[in-house]
């Protein structure tokens, strides 16, 4: 328990608007997944550094679905409960490419900015 708490204190909040991108990338990389799976993947990749209320994944999923970038269907989870499986659509892949490019551009700018010495 105490170990958990100390790790929690180091966690970082997710940057505004990046959760959608992470969810899209996860679905693109791993194929159809349910919300729990997506949360686990993000946890794994981020090495548990990111602070995530896992429920917000579903808000992101709803937003993506409204835009038509992902689709969903019901299936069965590993503990035999009903779960909804999400998969990325063709327009979702295009959006991912756009967003990735945008992110890299932005990251590049910030990186350069931070490297500048007086």
């Amino acid at each position, binding site marked *: 328990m105490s170990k958990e708490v100390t790790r929690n204190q180091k966690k970082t909040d997710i940057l505004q608007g990046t959760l959608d991108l992470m969810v899209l990338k996860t679905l693109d990389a791993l194929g159809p997944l349910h919300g729990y799976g997506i949360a686990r993947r993000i946890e794994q990749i981020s090495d548990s550094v990111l602070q995530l209320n896992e429920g917000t994944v579903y808000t992101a999923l709803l*937003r993506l679905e409204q835009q038509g970038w992902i689709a969903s269907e019901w299936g069965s989870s590993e503990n035999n409960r009903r779960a909804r499986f999400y998969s990325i659509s063709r327009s979702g892949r295009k959006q991912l490419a756009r967003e990735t490019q945008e992110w890299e551009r932005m990251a590049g700018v910030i990186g350069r900015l931070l490297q500048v010495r007086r």
Partner: protein
Amino acid sequence: MEQLRAILAKLRHFFEGSLAERDFDEEARTHMALLADRFTRRGMTPEAAWREARRQFGNATSLKEARHDMQTFAWLERLWHDLLHGARLLRMNPVFSCVAIVSLGLGIGANTAIFQLLDAVRLRTLPIRNPNELAQIKIVGGNQGMGMNNAYGDLTRPIWEELHQRQKAFSGLFAWGVNGDVVGTGSQLEPVNGFYVTGNLFQVLGVEAWRGRLVTPEDEHACPVTTAVVSYAYWQTKMGGREIDLGTKLLIDGQLMQVTGVTPPGFLGLIVGDRFDIVLPFCEPKQLMRNLFEVTVMGRLRPGISLAGASAELAALSPGITAATEITGYSAETVARYRRFRLAAYPAGAGVSGLRDEYDSSLWLLLGITGLVLLIACANLANLILARASARERELGVRLALGASRGRLLAQLLAENTLLAVAGAALGIGIAQMVSRALVWSLSTESNAVLLPMAIDSRVLAFTAAVTTLTCLVFGAIPALRAAGLQPLSALRAGGRGMTASRDRFSLQRALAVTQISVSLVLLVGALLFVRSFHKLMTFDPGMREEGVTAAFIGFQQSNIPAERYLQFQQQLVEEVRAVPGVISAATTTNPPLLGGSWTHGIQIGSAHGDSKFTWVGPEYLATMGIPLLRGRGFSASDTADSARVAVVNETFVRQYAGGTDPIGMAMRTGQEPDYPSTVYTIVGVIPDTKYACLRCGTPPMTFAPASQFPAQHPWTAILIHSNLPADIIASRVKLRLAEKHPEMATQLSSFQTLIRDGLVRDRLMAMLSGFFGLLAALLAMAGLYGVVSYMAARRRNEIGIRIALGARRGQVIGMVMREAAWMVAAGVIAGTALALLAGRAAATLLFDLKPYDVPTLAAAAGMLIGIAVLASFVPASRASGLDPMQALRCD
């Protein structure tokens, strides 16, 4: 793009009504179960694992709310909830709701009705193709009474002919005129409104025939006219709507004419408020009269040509046109004046209208009055709502304390008030339909039926919507804003247990009451002014007999009397009328007074030039009209066509032309005019000043001459009949007698007094409506003041209770409460008097023999209002003074 997709998704969600909520619950449960499994596997107890799973998942309720907002139009839903909540509250207070909706309905209804009238008379365009291209050609400044003038006659036919040939600014130019005609013969004779048109009128207007064909250029040929077209209404009511064929004929003015077609039902002519029955083409007489102003000229402007452009062209054409159409037989001065006439183009898309000229300022004024009444009603409602709002302060305080935002609270209160306003507007539009029709009906007189179609067009709806919105802002927003500024803690704590209520709490209510009193004073002053003005007109002595006089208008064109015997025949008619039992005296006249007609001739006395009104009358005229002779003699049977020319003049004439000396024996020469050769009259008598054309009009110099010496005899005449019998009895007796002897003759009889009063329709309307609204305003203000004073007294119960317990007498308590009211009334009356003086200028021209700053009227209105105010505040004050102190202090 992304937002659009989100909206589409929301719409899909709305229509598909998905199971999303239940789905999410299931997804969330699965997710948490999987998390819990994981924690259990790491060695947690099941309870701890579930707790940790829930923590890591986050607040499911707020997630659900966020999802809900994403999937629905949240603001719309909130609005709907606000409206439902508002409706529920209004249902819970049926009395309040009814009072609010009915008073708003009346206020909005009155405004809409007046606006509908204004719309119909002034704003609405004619039902023709592209009405805005239509323009009218007039003489700049009018023809100043030159020559002879028909109703709606701007130009002479020679001018029209010249215009038609020379102008280039109009793609189509047409002329029209109106005339009273008769259809049928003998006792079946009925008067109709004739609409005389050039052959291209309907084609230029773009009006198509309903049946048969309308007037075409081929119908315009040498007189007499042989074809006619009838209006849809005439066709339906008088001709039974039978199909038009070659056998369809009408006897119009004694001429059998072929009816070729029917105009469409929507086309009511070019005169707003008037109707036409038959359409007749212009015909070409042997000689056109150059001094008869009988036609209106209108046309469609060519594309790209503005009114200013057309006017410029007309100004350039004017000298040539007036030179070519110069009037003859007039003095050199008159002819020179004619040559200076300039023509210009004016907008005509809304048609022409005498109603418009007469009622324009009255209707705007009435709109202002009804607007003020609505304002007072709104102030009343605002006060009611304020009172209610303070009763609801606890509720609002609780909701604020529980976290409702002020914006939400404001939105909800506004929704409630909007509901009231919209219900009031719906009721108002219904009321307006009845009121506007009743108003049109009240404008009609026996001789002049006003025909105005009342419609709810987009302009009327826009007006009502605007009024409703304004109303809503005035009565709804003020209390709502106030409630939104509430401090939750103090609202919860105060709960009616204040000592003396703070002044600030009431300042708004006080201001509203003062506004009400001042505005209602303005309306009361207006009402009194119009009622007094109308009363003065009704009781005004025009210097002649009004009661007991009957006017007979007779046309004997069908009687085959040769022109040289017109005079003799008229004298014979007078003798026949005099022989009717009950007739005391009777006399012909060329121009009955007070009915709007005017007849002027230029005169010369010695070296003085000027003009005078001229009337040629029968020998008994002065006796019939009860006009006394001041000096000299009147006319008698010995003044014949061959005897010396004599005249009787009025006092103004004497003052103006005889320098106040005795004019008897003076000679006056009339200026030459066509049919009226220059003649020398000797003045033989003087009468006192009487009114001439109308009651409001001034008294000009007037000359009377014997009918036997009238130089231009016509086959028609007017006979004024004096009798002590009731007007309708004498009218029917005379009509019967004349019909027996001359069945072919057209006779119309009316009570002289009724005819005069028909000219006072506008004054009657203003007196009735402003009187009604003034009283309504006073009543509303009384209710408002009563409400505010009662409310303030109720809020001071504890204080008053303590005062009574400490020994305050009844009178002292009453005085204390009424002093509060007195301040408001005093402020209201002062502000109202100032406003009334400002507003009075708008009414000045509509008043008769009264100035808008009439002191007795102002004093009477203020007195009435103060009386009402005392009554309205005494009742609650006396109730407060009867308080049982024990109860007031005990109850909370």
